[in-house]
């Protein structure tokens, strides 16, 4: 029985059954392993990290499922909340001043909801230019009206950057869900799934490669592990997995390979950039552990997606000429 002979809802159902089946299996394995006596603190730490990762993947998968099952409105709303929490964490990490108050209010309570309204109503042309054009000019105006010239450019740039990554980047995930492609009706969930899987593959492969290859890091002050070789390995793995998953996408095998490489490569670069940002903000503890401000590491998790989603989204649109 070929997958393409199933109805759309059956295909999507199969996707989720497979996804949750794999997750349940992984959770069971992790649970059984946690029952064994651990010998070293390093093992304990690894297990704890594993449990945290699994929990994050569960949350992500459930979010994905709810957003699919509940339709465009709820899915846009859910991604909107993820955006909100990511931006909240970003603003917490960057030290804003009093004069930024109104600009931040604009970002949180006007720009963010409007961007998601544009996604939800599938106004993709407006959605694409709203933040890069209109918000880009609106934010410095509001900031200047606050009458505080100290570090003006720096402060404005930080807010712009936060909006671009956390709102603009993130909003491309629900956009993929809602994108209407030729001969690909109502199957946006597969595109989001494909994107998440290839980005996760790239991250995993890059992590493994950097441990195995032990290449000299390109930018030691920012990341002890990032090297071009490892990055290439991540992108290659993403390309292979992307090509293997071509049947879940509207692409033929070769374009699927290219799309996988593009998404994987941008995702891991996004992760790298986020490390630079956290170094700059003076964050010592990494994902999952609460830091000084109580930031919970959501930004870490969504950053690769925030970087990869817009590039992937526009590659897809460009490829199909829509």
């Amino acid at each position, binding site marked *: 029985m070929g997958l393409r002979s199933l109805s759309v809802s059956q295909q999507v159902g199969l996707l989720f059954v497979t996804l949750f089946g794999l997750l349940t299996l992984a959770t069971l394995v992790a649970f059984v392993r946690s029952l064994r006596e651990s010998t070293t603190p390093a093992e304990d730490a690894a297990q704890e990290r594993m449990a945290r990762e699994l929990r994050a993947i569960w949350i992500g998968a459930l979010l994905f499922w709810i957003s699919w099952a509940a339709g465009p409105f709820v899915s846009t709303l859910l991604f909107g909340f993820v955006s909100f929490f990511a931006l*909240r964490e970003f603003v917490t990490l960057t030290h804003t001043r009093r004069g930024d108050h109104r600009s931040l209010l604009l970002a*949180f*309570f006007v720009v963010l909801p409007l961007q998601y309204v544009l996604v939800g109503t599938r106004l993709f042309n407006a959605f694409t230019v709203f933040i890069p054009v209109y918000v880009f000019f609106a934010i410095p105006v509001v900031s200047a009206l606050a009458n505080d010239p100290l570090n003006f450019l720096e402060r404005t740039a930080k807010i712009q950057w936060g909006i671009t990554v956390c709102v603009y980047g993130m909003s491309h995930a629900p956009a993929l869900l809602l994108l209407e492609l030729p001969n690909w009706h109502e199957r946006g969930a597969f595109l989001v799934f494909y994107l998440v899987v290839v980005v996760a593959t790239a991250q995993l492969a890059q992590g493994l490669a950097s441990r195995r290859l032990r290449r000299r890091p390109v930018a030691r002050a920012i990341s002890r592990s990032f090297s071009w070789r490892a990055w290439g390995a991540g992108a290659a793995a993403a390309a292979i997995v992307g090509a293997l998953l071509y049947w879940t996408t509207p692409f033929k095998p070769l374009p699927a390979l290219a799309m996988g490489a593009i998404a994987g490569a941008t995702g891991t670069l996004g992760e790298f950039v986020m490390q630079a940002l956290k170094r700059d903000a003076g964050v010592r503890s990494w994902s999952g552990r*609460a830091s000084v401000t109580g930031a919970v590491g959501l930004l870490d998790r969504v950053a690769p997606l925030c970087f990869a989603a817009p590039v992937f989204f526009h590659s897809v649109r460009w490829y199909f000429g829509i």
Partner: protein
Amino acid sequence: MKLPEAAGLVLAFVARLITGAQGHWHGVAPKAEQRIYFANHQSHFDWVLIWAALPRDLRAATRPIAARDYWTATPLRHWITREIFNAVYVSREHKDDEDPLEPLLEALRRGDSLVIFPEGTRGHGAEPAPFKSGLYSLAQAFPEVQLIPAWIDNVQRVMPKGEVVPVPILCTVTFGAPVALAPGEERRVFLDRARDAVIALREVA
């Protein structure tokens, strides 16, 4: 569920949505014992933040102090402070014959916990202002009530003075080990020690 309780849940939810309102407990556990929490004061939002950071079952028995003239001026303000927060009202104008701390002592006699900001007013600098003597008097009158220091971090960025809409920024409340009044301890010495205990939590956070 009655209306004030529901409104309280909504308010706590909004406070958590905007600030995270994470409570960190170092050297003390969130238990339903009679306590006086004392914290640095930077924003009107401080009380809501501490209240939202407390576990739900502790919120009902933990009361803020509210200025009677302001918080009973309109029906809405009065309702919020009376029904949701169960505030202890104090008068800002003192008559000679009454103790300004009397409403607080009354609440403590009833077994309630209190949250106080011993600086008196909202501070502007990085360091909290010297503590006023109320904390000392309460500690003397109720030696068995635990005095819990708390450090509120980041809240001044959420709602700077003069603004009315809060910006979503993560804040934490760090609760520390109890401070006890030593036998025969001088008032100023104790107040400075209590203030240091609050400031020390900034590093722990």
